[in-house]
């Protein structure tokens, strides 16, 4: 188990967004989380990265409670990379600098080493030729690929994708999904919140269906998509197919 979540509860004021969520993530596992909006998918991801705090329950990373030492929160975050729906690239920096800054400031690597890894990673997502470009001039799909590269440069042990293609035009979705697929082939540990059902089916080892703040169903893609146990899952999936 690389991540172990126990009885997680998250409230925004009166609104209970996560109700007693428990989840174990094995090393090398690709997990997709599906469910309608407001079901708590993104909040769960943001809690794992501590971008949101939670009211009760615990999250353990490699056997250690992530809140046990406040001082280590930042180094924990660097090991659990997050890719956002709206990219959140550092808009005052070039593509290369976006990938370099974290390595130099957080991991304290030299500029030469940082740039080497950054260029390698940009090559991998197919954007090495844009290294010196301002991120403002890129298309949405390119921006998201830079964001993935930026996260990969931190050499994280877990990757969290928060609806990585939801802000993209349909024709750009493919290029981003292809990058994520190639990462899945490398057996990286990934948790992907997505609305791309066929992608989730193809890429994941496990699919979770979340509804109203709980994980309602948890199984292999085959079980969950072809043979859902819960009525609510069936309903959700059928609505997706007819859309």
């Amino acid at each position, binding site marked *: 188990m690389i991540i172990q979540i126990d009885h997680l509860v998250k409230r925004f004021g009166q609104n209970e967004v996560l109700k007693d969520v428990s989840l174990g993530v094995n090393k090398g596992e690709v997990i997709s989380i599906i469910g309608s909006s407001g079901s708590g998918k993104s909040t769960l991801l943001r809690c794992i990265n501590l*971008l949101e705090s939670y009211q009760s329950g615990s999250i353990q990373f490699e056997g250690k409670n992530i809140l046990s030492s406040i001082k280590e929160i930042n180094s924990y975050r660097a090991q659990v990379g997050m890719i956002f729906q709206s990219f959140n690239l550092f808009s*005052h920096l070039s593509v290369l600098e976006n990938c370099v800054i974290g390595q130099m400031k*957080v991991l304290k690597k030299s500029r030469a080493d940082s740039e080497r890894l950054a260029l390698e990673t940009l090559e991998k997502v197919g954007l090495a030729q844009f290294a010196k470009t301002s991120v403002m001039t890129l298309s949405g799909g*390119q921006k998201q690929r830079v964001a993935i590269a930026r996260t990969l440069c931190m050499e994280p042990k877990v990757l969290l994708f928060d609806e990585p293609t939801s802000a993209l035009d349909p024709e750009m979705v493919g290029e981003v999904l292809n990058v994520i697929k190639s990462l899945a082939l490398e057996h990286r540990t990934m948790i992907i919140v997505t609305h791309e059902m066929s992608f989730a089916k193809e890429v994941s080892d496990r699919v979770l269906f979340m509804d109203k703040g709980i994980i309602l169903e948890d199984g292999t893609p085959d079980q969950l998509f072809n043979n859902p146990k819960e009525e609510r899952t069936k309903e959700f999936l059928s609505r997706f197919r007819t859309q």
Partner: protein
Amino acid sequence: MITILSKIPNDLWGASAYIFSKYAPLFYFGAKNTLIIALSGTIIGLIIGLGIGILRALPVYDYDSKLKHSVVKFIRFITSIYVEVFRGTPMMVQAVFIYNIFLPVFKNAKLFAGIVIVSINTGAYMAEIIRAGIQSLDKGQNEAARSIGMNNFQTMVFIILPQAIKNAFPAIGNEFVVNIKDTSVLNVIGVTELFFQSTTVAGIIYRFSDTFFVTALIYLFLTYSTTLILKYVEHKMNLGGYDGPQSQTTPLIKAHYVEKEKTL
């Protein structure tokens, strides 16, 4: 003395030209001091404003200790007193008050006194400008920085401030222009800036409207040329970015060019 007075032409432009040519060194001295005070005051004020603005924008998160929560609350309280007091009272009053409190120090260093007063006053405005600049940024910038493991300090210095200052640049420059004009209130404590010098000149020749017409033109020249320089710098600063509407699907032509250059 009588002969000088009788030589002054009677029309506004003629009199002004005469006064300016005759008393140029006095005006020049005043204008120089005005610029020195305004520029130093703006720069020191910006430094104060950066400090205060950052302190006021310090984030605290739920998982931070109770102590940190109270410390941050206290800092916000103290800094807001500074900002509200200095934005809420006239600089002329502040000048007289501060000057007399530190009279032994300031009596023989009026230029220095002027710089201190303008700096403290500008600092309060700059703090608000910087805070607004920080808050205008997308929350995602902060989240992205934290998500790659940056601490609050690194996030602020490497990610937030460069963008906040760039966004706030027009407002920061505007403070400089405002300061060029507002240094005139320092004549109340006898700083020999442009307004003070003009009063001197007008007193010698007893021609107020003509003298202050010259003064107005000098102020206008200073502020307008400053505005032009600031606009130029702003333009230069924005060359890298692109602010217009943008398609999600097609990267900007510029990106294509870069791609072509590299592959050729």
